[in-house]
């Protein structure tokens, strides 16, 4: 019985993926393109050269970092839509710290470290604002987060076109790039930094341990699954929800810092590049299991990078990868719902 159920679960998961592929093919057919050719192009866009593989990992890092934060928030039952804004604030604070210190004569390593810390502070402040609005203002974290996302975007645009504008003329391409000494060191010839890669891996390990082996992780889970029961067990839900906001803000801030220090080397508009929202999708797919985020985020990053090939090779818009990512989540969640419904039906007769 149990073995059977495991197999059925697996089949449902696979069928979700199959349905997503089918749906994307349908979209491609409507756009008069050959689906197989498109999938092949996406695949080749990821693996054809070492640079492309490295680029995929560059995209994987921020996705993993945001997913780490979001898994913690989800566990405590919080839909932290505000993660985009939290990433942006992290990036803004990092940029601010670097601008402040770049001419100070301090060693670059110290400045970079200060940049990371400032980024974390930015993410945490923005996340705490959501938490404060939720607990003291009675505003749902979804609306509070959404509102703060807009404010963060506006803030970054104002900085880029106002106080931090490039010498000469302000532009959408962002603030003036930092001196190469302040960049995170990279693998020779690639855009990938060993530092950001290690940061992502360490984050996964930390979140995995937190969720699996600590009392705090278990308490977060209890708060997320049944607030009222948690109270009976002496756990204060508001305390643990605030904690999960803080932890999520830490990871969001790290994401912003990595994008500034390791990828763009300046502040650009919409520096979060949608990684926050994409992280939400990954976190939904992995269902609280951070380990699964490793392959899922890799798949999503690959779709992002591979999708770049489509306009070049087939004159298709690269947003097709977005269609694939979201239809994956969509069908996966639907299949999960169907599976649960079927199981419940199966269990009912056995009760009587």
């Amino acid at each position, binding site marked *: 019985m149990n073995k059977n159920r495991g197999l059925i679960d697996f089949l449902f998961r696979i069928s979700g993926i199959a349905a997503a592929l089918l749906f994307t093919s349908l979209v491609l057919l409507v756009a008069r393109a050959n689906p197989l050719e498109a999938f092949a192009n996406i695949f080749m866009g990821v693996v054809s050269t070492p640079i492309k593989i490295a680029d995929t990992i560059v995209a994987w890092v921020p996705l993993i970092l945001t997913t780490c934060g979001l898994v913690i928030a989800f566990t405590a039952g919080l839909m932290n839509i505000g993660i985009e804004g939290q990433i942006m604030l992290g990036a803004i604070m990092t940029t601010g710290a670097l601008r402040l210190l770049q001419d100070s004569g301090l060693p670059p390593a110290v400045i970079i470290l200060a940049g990371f810390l400032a980024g974390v502070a930015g993410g945490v402040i923005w996340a705490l604002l959501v938490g404060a609005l939720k607990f003291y203002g009675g505003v749902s974290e979804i609306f509070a987060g959404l509102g703060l996302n807009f404010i963060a975007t506006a803030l970054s645009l104002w900085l880029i076109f106002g106080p931090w504008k490039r010498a000469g003329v302000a532009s959408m391409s962002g603030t003036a790039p930092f001196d190469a000494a302040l960049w995170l060191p990279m693998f020779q010839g690639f855009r990938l930094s060993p530092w950001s890669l290690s940061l992502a891996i360490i984050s996964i390990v930390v979140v995995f341990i937190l969720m699996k*082996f*600590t*009392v*705090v992780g*278990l*308490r977060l*889970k*209890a708060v997320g*699954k*049944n607030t*009222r*029961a*948690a*109270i*009976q*067990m*002496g*756990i*204060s839900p508001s305390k643990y929800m605030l904690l999960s906001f803080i932890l999520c803000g830490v990871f969001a801030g790290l994401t912003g810092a990595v994008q500034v220090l390791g990828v763009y080397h300046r502040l650009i508009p919409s520096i979060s590049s949608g990684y926050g929202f994409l992280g939400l999708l990954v976190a939904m797919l992995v269902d609280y299991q951070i380990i699964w985020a490793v392959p899922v985020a890799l798949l999503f990053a690959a779709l992002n990078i591979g999708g770049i090939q489509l306009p070049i090779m087939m004159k298709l818009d690269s947003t097709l990868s977005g269609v694939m990512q979201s239809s994956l989540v969509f069908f996966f969640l639907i299949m999960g719902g169907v599976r649960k419904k079927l199981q419940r039906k199966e269990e009912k007769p056995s*009760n*009587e």
Partner: protein
Amino acid sequence: MLIELIEIHKFFGSVHANNGITLTIEPGQILGVLGENGAGKSTLMKVLSGLICKDSGKILINHLEQELNSPSDALRLGIGMLHQDPHDFPSMTIREDLQIWDSRTGVKKSASDWQQLIAIQKDLGFHFDLNGTVGELTVGERQQLELVRLLWLGVEVLILDEPTTGISAAQQEVLFAALKKLAGQDKTIIFVSHKLEEVKELCSRAVVLRKGCLIGERQAPFNENDLVELMFGRQITRTRTSQSGTQDICMSVRNLSIEDFRIRIENVNFDLYAGEVIGLAGMEGSGQRQFLQTLAGLKQATGGRIEIDREDINGKNCFEFQKRGIFYVPSARMEEGLVPGMTLEEHYILSDCEKRMFINGKNSRMITETRIERFNIKGRAATNSEELSGGNQQRLLLSLLKDPARLLLLENPTRGLDIESANWIWSILRERCQAATSIIFSSADLDELTFYADRILVFFAGRISEPLPSSGLTEEKLGRMIGGKDWPK
């Protein structure tokens, strides 16, 4: 309209909520439906109003068999139910609220219908400003609005489920006058209540349900003792073994008042002794839950003192209460007590108050195994809490309670359990009383109350009696008090 219910059966899982009920209701009468909690009266009324579907049996309306699959089916046939909680839209104006309902039944209302509505409310002595907001009305007024709405939709059979809970004495008078008038107009009124006084005043006929069966009916004028006996049955009274209380005061309650949406309790005074068991008697919704939650710090009292060791802890949060050894066990086990999707072992780790960072797997496995064995829980360490049966969930809840504790507040601790599980749970609780833990519990079972409680507080419509020693209390007397009789003026 003549209604005939024939051999109605309804199961909820293994509970036989309606067991072959056959009942004929003639037009123009006010029928009282009596019974204690869980007797099946609400279920029967919900079947008749289309809210839930019967498992078997027939419903004949004017000799024609009808299938009632939804409340709108029932409304179309002229059967309407007034629920305990108003089914309306607090944020709408009264006019909008009425319009919503009228479009639901598919009948279009014109200006003349509004005149008709005004005529109905005038006839019954109600006054509404159609442009006022529903949310601004009192519970009693919302009930009047619902009554008018149902009549306006052409209802011939009116079912009222405990309509006098939470309304003022004046509103009750208006309501009763209206109901009598409606019965005079050949409408059928079905009045579900546990208050004997009201049934006596209003009804021309009463039926009594017990454990899902219709066990008797009486015509007015009623004999109260006769009805009490029908409702609660003659049970063999077990004699209490020992008084478990001591003379040390565990908690003093002074001038406590509690307010809720429906219930207002004032001026409660009593001393609870260490090791004592106090039972809360009364019909569901008479304030027992609010009382227990207030003593657990989960609900703020509006006034008064809760003293522990001469310190007033009223106003502190529930975690402060827990620190002082006061724990609450809710009646809704899965909703409020246990965490679905978590294993038994995870529950034990969480309830363990020791401060530590990492989960000690070996230790927690050991604790889990011993507790499962000690509390006789049919489940394994890796079983999820929602997979347990009701009785085992209750055992799990009790096994999570910290030991030692000062006071356990138990809401319906043995509800839904078979006799054997109930006895076993009480044997565990009694052991804790020996260790000077006090217990306050609510129950609908008079036998359980008189047998296990040292003293009993009776709840009725927001009033709480003095603590009554259970040794001098017969079930008959208790039943009368629960029904609102024999209260000192």
